[in-house]
């Protein structure tokens, strides 16, 4: 194959990979035109946020091979960062005496704790919602990957760490709102623009963040670092023998994934209008894994759609308790089937169908096809 041809093939492959992202983002932005109901729009925004969270897991799990069972930890940190800032913005009626949040007054806290102080600045909170999860992930990643802990043990450590943080938040009621979380928040206002949870502005904010997350994650998977991360997933030892610092790459993808889920957490607080310990609970964390697996862990768009569809379906059925319970049962069965027979999820199914169509229409293009198949075989 001449270099020119290969670069052309590369370009068309790039096009084929970015097309689904463009289509999905366009649909997301067009949704408010179809959905003429603020309540419904808010619900959809919620599913989109969960979609962002699932993209972040696809990055670390599907591409990095790191099954993070505590993905919701970064999500929760982001969510609390936003909630703390918005709580301090509430009008004095809600905040009790001296600008203290109401739950602190109920718990006889005399003055604002030091770690609440900086959250009086919204800018700080917005930065913290992304940077703190990334820093925590870097620390945890350093702790895990520098000692070459792999596989199942990574999952146990991430899960246990999240449970610890969850327990601490519930236990320290006077500083965190405990089991109830942080409620009665002010509206987010950036540069004079108010983001009402049920308004269009919030929906477009979420849609923009979906696009941003998809593009950042996609760019990373196409970068050199992203390729090395995928190589580490497939064979850690070989990459190490080539002289790469395996742990550094793992820590990076771990932190990037945490930053994205921190962003999702902040949006979740805006859309839900509260923050709660359940946002970093085991239940949510495992649900994210399910969404990711069903949608396709090795496809960013697939993972995103998996979350939106499954969570959306669950939400739609939750009107009736009997439906919901049956649905949970069906969900469990579906999940087992996907794990057993569709390791690449629905995205893998779609890719297979697409390849089948292309193959039938253009039998002459054997070269690209065999490249595709060779990649398939090595994965």
């Amino acid at each position: 194959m001449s270099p020119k041809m290969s670069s052309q093939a590369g370009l068309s492959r790039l096009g084929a990979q970015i097309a689904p992202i463009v289509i999905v983002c366009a649909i997301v932005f067009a949704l408010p035109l179809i959905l003429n109901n603020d309540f419904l729009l808010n619900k959809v925004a919620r599913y989109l946020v969960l979609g962002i969270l699932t993209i972040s897991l696809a990055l670390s799990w599907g591409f990095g091979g790191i099954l993070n069972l505590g993905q919701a930890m970064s999500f929760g940190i982001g969510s609390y960062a936003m909630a703390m800032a918005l709580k301090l913005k509430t009008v004095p009626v809600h905040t009790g005496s001296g600008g203290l949040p109401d739950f602190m007054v109920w718990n006889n806290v005399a003055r604002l704790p030091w770690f609440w102080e900086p959250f009086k600045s919204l800018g700080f909170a917005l930065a913290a919602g992304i940077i703190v999860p990334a820093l925590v992930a870097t620390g945890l990643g350093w702790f895990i990957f520098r000692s070459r802990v792999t596989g199942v043990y990574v999952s146990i450590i991430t899960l246990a760490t999240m449970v610890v943080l969850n327990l601490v938040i519930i236990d320290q009621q006077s500083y965190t709102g405990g089991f109830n979380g942080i409620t009665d928040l002010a509206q987010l206002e950036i540069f004079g623009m108010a983001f009402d949870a049920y308004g269009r502005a919030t929906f477009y904010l979420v849609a923009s963040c979906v696009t941003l997350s998809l593009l950042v994650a996609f760019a990373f998977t196409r970068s050199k670092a992203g390729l090395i991360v995928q190589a580490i997933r497939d064979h850690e030892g070989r990459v190490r023998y080539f002289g790469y610092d395996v742990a550094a790459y793992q820590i990076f993808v771990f932190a990037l994934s945490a930053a994205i889920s921190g962003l999702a957490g902040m949006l979740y607080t805006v859309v839900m209008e509260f923050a709660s310990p359940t946002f970093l609970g085991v239940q949510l964390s495992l649900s994210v894994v399910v969404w990711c697996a069903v949608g396709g862990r090795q496809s960013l768009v697939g993972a995103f759609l998996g979350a939106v569809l499954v969570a959306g379906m669950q939400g739609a059925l939750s009107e009736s308790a009997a439906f919901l319970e049956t649905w949970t049962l069906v969900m469990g069965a579906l999940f087992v089937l996907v794990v057993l027979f569709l390791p690449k999820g629905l995205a893998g199914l779609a890719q297979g169908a697409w390849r089948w169509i292309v193959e039938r229409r253009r039998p002459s293009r054997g070269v690209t096809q065999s490249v595709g198949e060779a990649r398939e075989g090595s994965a």
Partner: protein
Amino acid sequence: MDQFFEQIITGLSIGSILLLVALGLSIIYGSMGIINLAHGEFVMLGAYSAWLFQTYFGLGLLASLVLIFVVVAAIGWIIERFVLSLLNNRPLDTILATWGVGIMLQQGVRLLVGSELRYVQLPPSLSDSMDVFGLSVSSYRVFLFGVTLALFAATWLLLNRTTMGMKLRAIMQEPSVAASFGINVRSVHGITFAYGAGLAGLAGALVSPLKSVSPDMGTGYVVDAFMVVVLGGVQSLAGTVASAFILGELSGAIAFLQNDTVAKALVLLAIVVLIRFRPEGLFTTRVRA
């Protein structure tokens, strides 16, 4: 001093329940490499079987123990046969598959029996308390401790003194070589999983008089039991025993000094640090991986 002994006994009691749940998990994980997140659901099924036998057949807890073991083991065997045996050499996927199975079991029970709390009666012969080192301890807890040790002994004998155990140990070393010597890997795996599930069912049945029975009662146990297995070392039964009682005493002591939440958080943190520095567990001598 009395308080000290009381703490020790509380710890032993927590530890024996932990061990009971962890024993089955340890066997399944240690010998098959399956991270069984449905283990808590087997515990729950055991508790529900106890309730079922008591309410509909009038059988006391002690009389139905064997039946409960058989019922839950059979369910475990079916799951191994039709789900897990399809997942050879994909240990991370077993986490996902067993979690899905767990949801199905939990939801199935919720749909069939309802999500109300159920109660199982203490066996009348064990409802009084007895004197241990000058302290009054509930007889049932002493009984639990005894049963736990007996089950541990039985498991150890099965593994180390029977042909079945020998086959299993051969498979643990190297499945393909074991298979070439004529050992039926699939059937041994099926029986092992069934045995582990049965043990979990017994644990659930034995715990049921102490706690209320509900469809999601197993969730808490599986995390704790998993920590026991990790702490004890994956392929070491004796390690599992030691770590169950260490964790029991530890959480008992910290809960006494601080509170339950702090105890749980500290124990989890300790385990995270332990995995970092000794992923093979505290009590394992390196075996062939």
